[in-house]
């Protein structure tokens, strides 16, 4: 495992302002090219884990580096550049309500001032990948839940980020569409992209046999290189 360390967490703890301990002394290293599932019951701390990676949430204590950058001691004006190197799929999608599907996805490219030609090509291609080519003109409120989720996925991957961070990316997708998304993830992972995905989907985790980090009550209870979802239900 001499590959580049993409995510490094040491003794990371997060206590929210209201006193809720979301993560407690977490130690994790994730290297380039890994495909990691983050599992755990509702409220275990998966989203908190993920939000720390792109600095929506700052750890209360500990050390956290992402893509070689020290997330905690980073200057404010560097944050956008950290975020650009990541492709984040948010649990609540976070689409811009006043922008169309096309604009929502191209926004991620506007931000890095990509040339227009490249932008059109890239946006159309990810729209094809998530199967929303004919919805490009719709606004988010005109889409079904699963369609919105797929727009969020498209936006996350359009810039070929070095890490894709996905929080429950298939929660509102039917099994067939979910597998389509997993295929995409596997393809970009094979091309060297690191993937961290929080999920509740037992079927997918069990079938993929990748690294699984299980969190319970803010602590890592299991970290297997080729694991399953765990516990029968």
């Amino acid at each position: 495992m001499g590959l580049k360390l993409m995510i490094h967490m040491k003794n990371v703890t997060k206590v929210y302002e209201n006193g809720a301990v979301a993560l407690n002394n977490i130690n994790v290293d994730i290297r380039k090219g890994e495909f990691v599932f983050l599992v755990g019951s509702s409220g275990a701390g998966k989203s908190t884990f993920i939000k720390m990676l792109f600095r929506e949430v700052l750890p209360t204590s500990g050390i956290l580096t992402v893509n070689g950058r020290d997330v905690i001691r980073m200057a404010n004006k560097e944050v956008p550049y950290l975020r650009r190197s990541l492709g984040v799929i948010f649990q609540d999608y976070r689409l811009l309500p006043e922008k169309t599907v096309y604009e929502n996805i191209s926004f991620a490219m506007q931000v890095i001032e990509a040339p227009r030609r490249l932008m059109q090509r890239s946006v159309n291609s990810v729209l094809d990948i998530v199967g929303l080519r004919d919805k490009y003109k719709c606004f988010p409120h005109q889409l079904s839940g699963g369609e919105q989720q797929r727009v969020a996925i498209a936006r996350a991957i359009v810039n070929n980020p070095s890490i894709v961070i996905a929080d429950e990316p298939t929660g509102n997708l039917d099994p067939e569409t979910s597998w389509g998304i997993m295929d995409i993830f596997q393809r970009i992972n094979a091309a060297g992209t690191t993937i961290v995905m929080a999920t509740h989907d037992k079927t997918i985790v069990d079938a993929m046999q990748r690294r699984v980090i299980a969190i319970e009550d803010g602590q890592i209870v299991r970290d297997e290189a080729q694991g399953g979802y765990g516990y029968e239900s």
Partner: protein
Amino acid sequence: MKVRTIEYYIREVFISLRRNNWMSVASIGTVAVSLFIFGMFLMMVMNMNKLAENMESQVQINVYLLDKVDREQARDIEKDLKEIEGVESVGFVTKDEAMERFKDRLGDQKTLLDALDETNPLPDSFEVTVTNPDLVKTAAEKMEKLDGVECAKYGQDVMEHLFEITRLLRIFGFTLMLVLAFATLFIISNTIRLTVFARRKEIAIMKYVGATDWFIRWPFVMEGMVLGLFGSIIAAMVLRTAYTAMAEKVYDTLAFFPLIPEQPFLTYITIVVVISGMVVGAIGSAVSIKKFLKV
């Protein structure tokens, strides 16, 4: 910053104005109304000021000559008067003219003067206007020292009364303007703040996707500027129309009132209003957005 990005900003502004059209109309309306009020009082105060100036400039010194002074000597005195500091104009009034005016002033009671028969006890005099009311006193003193001058009067108490009024008028006008400027600033920036507030989630999302502060801020600032521009243009147009209509009315009925002529006054007002609108709009946006960028 690439041309591409500037182009994006500009497109962004107009798309946003259209899509948030409800909010855009509300804030353009507020900008227009408050700048209209501001402009109205700016005009009022400037006219009041003009009136005060006008009243002050009408303060004159009457220089009464000794009876023995003849026309030749009077001309010399006129020259001397003109050389005194602050003197603006000097007009000669013969004793006959003075009598005429006196009779006019008496009106009803002019029969009183019949008792004088044909004698005219009034002297020849000069009416002197002075550029600056502060100089009146010293100028009058200098005049009294001239040869052939009996005395120089300038209605001390009336003048002081008048200055008191115009001074208060100015202080009042200035305070009014200051209060209104702050009020306008407050209302416009508050309105813009509310529209930014309504879009705080969008701003956060943009940041999470990796936009820099300025990338988010520019379209907002430009939008604020455009809102301010539109609002202030409406205000300026209404103000121009209203002033012209009012001026006509005043010329018709109160011709003596020293209204400031429409040009270049209206141009000046328009510029002030439009620039304040744009600046307040832009700064209002820039300031309001600040707190929502911290994610």
